[in-house]
């Protein structure tokens, strides 16, 4: 084989190596999960043939044909130059593409990434040495394949590194276990559920943080390795309470985390049909979430939402205490429940009643059914941990709703704004309307462009949304004639008075209308995907 051949092959290998760094970044973003990475890869590249690969293949084919079929030096040189141009274009396009990719998270050079880069380096080094000392034409073909399908090298180096990674993971696991065991007075609270677990975790933290040293697993650290990392980096001997959010995608996920942290208390917020594609069926979901109650230490406490029939299907244990609480407006009564819910421009007020019929009047700035329900579970947990009843309201004072998610603002001219601008899902919209309906105020006005990005069901859902609006608002402002047609139909279905509907050209037109009709004591609900410019 000719020296040019070898140089060409080594160049292709170097280019692959460059590509692989970017591939590693993507591999990292898919949390090093092969199946997830491949799925993502297919999704990203299934729709079109990558132009830089086409250039590379063309250049390579021309080069190989020239070198195998022509002996004339001039032709060789001309063709070499031509193929070099093609390959350069390929490199250029590729570099241009990835530098213009909008990636939220940069590649983090973790030790694992460094190890993968090391392994890749060794693979390519051996490959290059082979190319130098061997004359097999297959090598050049192989180099091209590895370049076009650059993910193959990633999977290969990941496979090679597996045993090392496993050793390291085990070391981290043991390390975390030791840290936990050396902290004898630590109370571990496990939280899982299909929805509401993050909110409950944060509310519970707010209720406990004044009286105890509390550590919570940060956002999106709800896997076993996230928990291990939290323990190794953040858990100090001075912590009293460790709140662990446990996420699950398949059977056994929660058990893994419980085996590590041995919770003293556990709460399952709700069980619904989330991650069905990995769980296959609801009974697997119930089984998995139930692993938390299985994992609670003997004589521990399980907080059980008795309004959730799926949670009630979990097998009971005799050696732990079950603290029952229930959903709002439910007839069955648990150890803790909410009563007399009132919504006004001050927020929500309700009575938390406990098993001894002690009534704790609670006041919060949070609005909406789901929030209040999460609050009931967080308060009952906090009370069971040992927070005093009389402190609860003081602790709640600092809890603010998240901006644009059913947050409350009272304007200078004394009407109330319910800001739910960031909401875009049917459940949330219905919740917001329920709050509006029960709000203590004069006229209830809603402004909305309707829900978008809901796929094929969008029109049906928006029509339903229109019907709900008819039940809860006294005046409706719809932004955009065309895009709110479905909502208009929904209002028609309910024979809503046309005089109370205003169709605005755009947002400004809508707000002009509001300013002309709104009076003291009125309530305005701003609902759904309004553009970010609305931020006063």
């Amino acid at each position, binding site marked *: 084989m000719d020296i040019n051949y070898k140089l060409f092959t080594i160049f292709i290998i170097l280019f692959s190596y460059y590509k692989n760094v970017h591939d590693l970044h993507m591999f990292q973003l898919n949390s090093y999960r092969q199946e997830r990475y491949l799925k993502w890869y297919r999704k990203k590249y299934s729709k079109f043939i990558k132009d830089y690969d086409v250039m590379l293949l063309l250049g390579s084919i021309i080069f190989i044909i020239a070198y195998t079929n022509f002996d004339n030096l001039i032709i060789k040189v001309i063709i070499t130059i031509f193929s070099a141009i093609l390959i350069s274009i390929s490199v250029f396009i590729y570099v241009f593409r990835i530098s213009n990719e909008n990636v939220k998270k940069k590649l983090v050079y973790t030790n694992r990434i460094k190890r993968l880069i090391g392994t890749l380096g060794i693979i390519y080094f051996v490959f290059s040495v082979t190319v130098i000392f061997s004359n097999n034409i297959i090598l050049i073909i192989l180099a091209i394949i590895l370049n076009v399908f650059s993910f193959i090298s990633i999977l290969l180096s990941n496979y090679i590194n597996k045993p090392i990674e496993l050793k390291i993971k085990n070391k981290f696991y043991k390390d975390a276990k030791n840290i936990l065991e050396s902290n*004898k007075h630590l109370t571990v609270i496990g939280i899982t559920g299909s929805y509401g677990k993050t909110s409950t975790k944060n509310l519970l933290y707010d209720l406990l943080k004044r009286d105890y040293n509390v550590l919570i697993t940060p956002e999106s650290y709800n896997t076993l390795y996230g928990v291990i990392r939290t323990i190794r980096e953040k858990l100090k*001997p001075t912590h009293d309470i460790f709140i662990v959010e446990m996420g699950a995608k398949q059977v056994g996920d929660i058990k893994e985390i419980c085996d590590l942290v041995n919770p003293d208390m556990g709460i399952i917020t709700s069980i619904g049909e989330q991650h069905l594609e990995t769980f296959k069926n609801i009974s697997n979901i119930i089984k998995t979430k139930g692993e938390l109650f299985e994992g609670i230490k003997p004589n521990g406490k399980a907080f059980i939402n008795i309004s959730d029939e799926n949670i009630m299907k979990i097998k009971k244990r005799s050696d732990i205490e079950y603290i029952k609480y229930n959903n709002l407006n439910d007839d069955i009564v648990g150890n803790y429940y909410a009563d007399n819910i009132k919504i006004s421009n001050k927020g929500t007020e309700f009575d938390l009643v406990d098993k001894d019929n002690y009534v704790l009047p609670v006041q919060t700035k949070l609005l909406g059914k789901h929030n209040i329900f999460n609050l009931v579970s967080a308060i009952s947990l906090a009370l069971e941990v040992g927070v005093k009843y009389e402190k609860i309201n003081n602790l709640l004072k600092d809890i603010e709703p998240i901006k644009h998610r059913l947050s409350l603002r009272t304007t200078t001219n004394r009407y109330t704004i319910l800001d739910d601008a960031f909401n875009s899902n049917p459940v949330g919209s219905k919740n917001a309307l329920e709050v509006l309906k029960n709000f203590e105020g004069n006229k209830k006005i809603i402004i909305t462009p309707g829900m978008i990005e809901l796929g094929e069901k969008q029109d049906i859902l928006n029509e339903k949304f229109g019907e709900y609006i008819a039940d809860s608002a006294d005046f409706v402002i719809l932004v955009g004639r065309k895009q709110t047609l479905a909502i208009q139909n929904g209002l028609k279905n309910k024979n809503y008075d046309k005089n109370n509907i205003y169709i605005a050209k755009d947002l400004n037109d809508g707000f002009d209308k509001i300013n002309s009709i709104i009076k003291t004591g009125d309530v305005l609900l701003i609902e759904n995907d309004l553009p970010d410019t609305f931020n006063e």
Partner: protein
Amino acid sequence: MINLAVFFGSRSVEHEVSIITALQTILTLKENNNLNIQPIYIDKTGDWYTGDNLLEIDNFKNIKKVIANSQKINFVRENGKTYIVKSPLPTLRKGIISQVDMAFPIIHGSYGEDGSLQGFFEHMQIPYIGSSVLASATTMDKIITKLILKSSGVNVVDSVWFSADEWLNDSNKCIKLVEDNLDYPLIIKPSDIGSSIGVKVVKSKKEVEDAVNFVRKFSNRILAEKMIQNMREINISVLGDSEEVELSVCEEPISDDEFLTFDNKYNSNGSSTKGMSSAKREIPAKLTETEKNTIETMAKESFRALNLSGLCRIDFIMDTKEKKIYVNEFNTIPGSLAFYLWEATNKSFLEVLNTLIKLSSKKERNEAMLIRTNKSNILSGVKLGGLKK
């Protein structure tokens, strides 16, 4: 296991007392199985040491030897944690001796009770037991303490003050200030030294000069105070923070023994202290209900006004003739941590120490919730070209 570093010794006139208090405390803390205690001895030059031989009181009879057998150390912060490391650092190893989760300063007087060590802890981000930098520094200085207490309506003994420089520039002016406001006999004392060292009773104008020149050796700020003729000393201990406080019974010291000798040290077997000679102190002090209530109210109010937290012993002076009660001084790290007062109040030394540990964690939590830094970098939008000219 909480790694608790106990600090004692330091550059203070009460160096030895501090050693005794610290060792009494460590003895009791050993009953708490959740603690890993690291003794940190600061010698009279300010060097730091650790080691097991620092736990025996008898070893301190020969300080040179103790130091020779101890490991010199420094503190470093790394990855959000604080460690004790060997000094000088070994060339090849990290030299880490232990992690520090919490600090317990048991140093009386300067460089320990005055906020300076507390400031070090703040910077190293170690939660620590006792009062904050502000409260420690304030109560260290009698002049400033009086100014604050006066404005919050707590009775303090009449006094005037001047600085050493003012005295050197114009001593007659200072003497005039004293005589215009106070009658002889009066007391001249340094403003900021922990114990009763350097206190002079002055009976006439002649003695003022000598007294001030003596007191100047100890402090740059000099306090002249009315002398209460028919006085009783009453002390009380306060434990708590801005949210809630507990009060101990009152005591009346009869001899001027500042601290308990180590012979009648605290017995770790939980029985009450032996050898607490009643000749030295009267516990509880004989007080009328009204007097007791007055003292308790004053103690609470001063604790609040001076932003104290953790443990404190507050010393009062009673004028038996005028029937008046004054706050005299504060000890944020009192001798023997005033445990004998708490025992008489049915709170064991161990319970007091456990409460202090809890309070320290709480203080750190509350601090962590405050906004202390700007999230955005103010410099990012500024033209910085003008700085170097």
